[in-house]
């Protein structure tokens, strides 16, 4: 379980997170919604210790990230797969090398050739052909890069997957494909996921629960049906905006 406790984070004078309390239950997919710039990505980066909170803590499987030793932090990071917004693939490395970096670690040090078959299998899981292995990120389309990013995130068989704006910058067809991929991987791998998005369609499609982050705090955490019935004007204005048109609003 991942639990955010009273998390505060500021950048210079800008308070981004102002006391976030949120937990993610085992096996669920939590869609984290919110307007751009409200700190959704900042929040999930704390779960991996990529950012240090000014106050508060994140607990992952009972380990306090704020107080974790380097060894504990490494262990937490091996349990989590992070899908970055723009894939964050290493430009100077081929797809195979990008995957290899996640397949093994400095301690284990498996040579790249022995990871190749496993890498091809990872690509198949995200519906990419093995021929992509020797290409460089600059030779791939945006959708393909995202998929390679997903393959890299699941390479070390994580228990948790953190998706940072997985559909941003994709056309509707590719965005739908990524939504399907999120659900498919949740089923196949049985992972617990947090999907950060400002795309309502993605949130309602993939989320078992939806949390709305607003002005640095969690405004609501409910199932999709419940949040559509939420009468808080801020929640209702945000979540109903595109749901009324397609007839799914309560």
């Amino acid at each position, binding site marked *: 379980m991942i639990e955010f406790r009273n998390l505060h984070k500021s950048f210079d004078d800008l308070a981004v997170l102002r006391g976030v309390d949120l937990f993610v239950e085992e096996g669920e997919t939590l869609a984290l919604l919110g307007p751009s710039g409200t700190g959704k990505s900042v929040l999930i980066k704390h779960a991996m210790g990529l950012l240090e909170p000014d106050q508060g803590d994140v607990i992952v499987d009972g380990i306090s990230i704020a107080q974790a030793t380097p060894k504990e932090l*490494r262990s937490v990071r091996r349990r989590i797969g*992070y899908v970055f917004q723009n894939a964050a693939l*290493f*430009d100077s490395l081929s797809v195979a090398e990008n995957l290899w970096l996640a397949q093994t*670690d*400095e301690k284990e040090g498996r040579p790249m050739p022995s990871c190749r078959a496993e890498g091809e299998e990872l690509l198949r899981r995200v519906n990419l052909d093995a021929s992509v292995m020797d290409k460089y990120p600059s030779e791939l389309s945006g959708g393909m890069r995202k998929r390679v990013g997903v393959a890299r995130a699941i390479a*070390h068989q994580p228990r948790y997957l953190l998706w940072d704006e997985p559909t941003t910058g994709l056309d509707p067809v590719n965005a739908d494909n990524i939504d399907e991929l999120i659900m498919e991987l949740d089923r196949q791998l049985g992972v617990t996921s947090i999907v950060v998005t400002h795309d309502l369609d993605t949130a309602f499609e993939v989320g078992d629960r939806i949390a709305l982050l607003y002005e640095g705090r969690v405004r609501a955490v409910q199932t999709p049906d419940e949040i559509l019935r939420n009468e808080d004007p801020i929640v209702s204005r945000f979540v109903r905006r595109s749901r009324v048109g397609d007839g799914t609003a309560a």
Partner: protein
Amino acid sequence: MRKLTNGLVTVGEAAVLAGQIVRVLPRPRLYMNAALQQAYLMGIQSLPLVLVMAFLGGAVTSQQTGAQFAGGLPLWVIGSVLAASVITELGPVLTGIVMMARVGAAIAAELASMKVTEQIDALVAMGRDPVAFLVVPRVVGGLIAFPPLVILANAMGIVAGYTIALLVVDGMTSADLVYGMRFYFRTWALIFSVLKGAVFGFAITFIACFVGLSGTGGAEGVGRTTTKAVVATTITLMVLDVLLVPVLKAF
């Protein structure tokens, strides 16, 4: 007050990075292949420019010395000035300037770009140490590549200065030049030159990595970071040049 605090924070962060580098150094398995690759790239790609700069530096030194001293001092002094200038100053400093422009700027831009596109975060997220993976190979690569480049720059500077002196200084003979160079030459000067190259190699790659890793913003931020790295390495290079003089005198 805020500037002073920021300055102290920067020095502290640089010290932390230096400490992290030192911690990784005893484990060459983590970085040596990449460091050798970096050294090869830095060395081979920079060699033509280093040699051109050294040639010009040597040529200017012998011509100007000839123009200023001919008639007043024995001609062999030109050989001494040429050897002293090239070995203790021009060889290492011109190599440093070329490397700062070619290697330092490239490292800062690359790491800043990796930072703003979350590639550094991705490394950390995969449980990899960015210092072992990115910084140490570049710093060790610099330490390996710089000294041979300085030796080659010294050789080129002296050959160029020697040739140009014979061509343009009236009455100059090969025997005068060789005598002047041998009169000046001390083994320590050569060791000092190579040592200076290693110090510059460390300073340029370390500062470029440090500034690059602090990159923020988008494309504009990468540009700003690169400029900052070039300015910081230029100043550091010249300050180190001054600070190292007592080392030359000490032996």
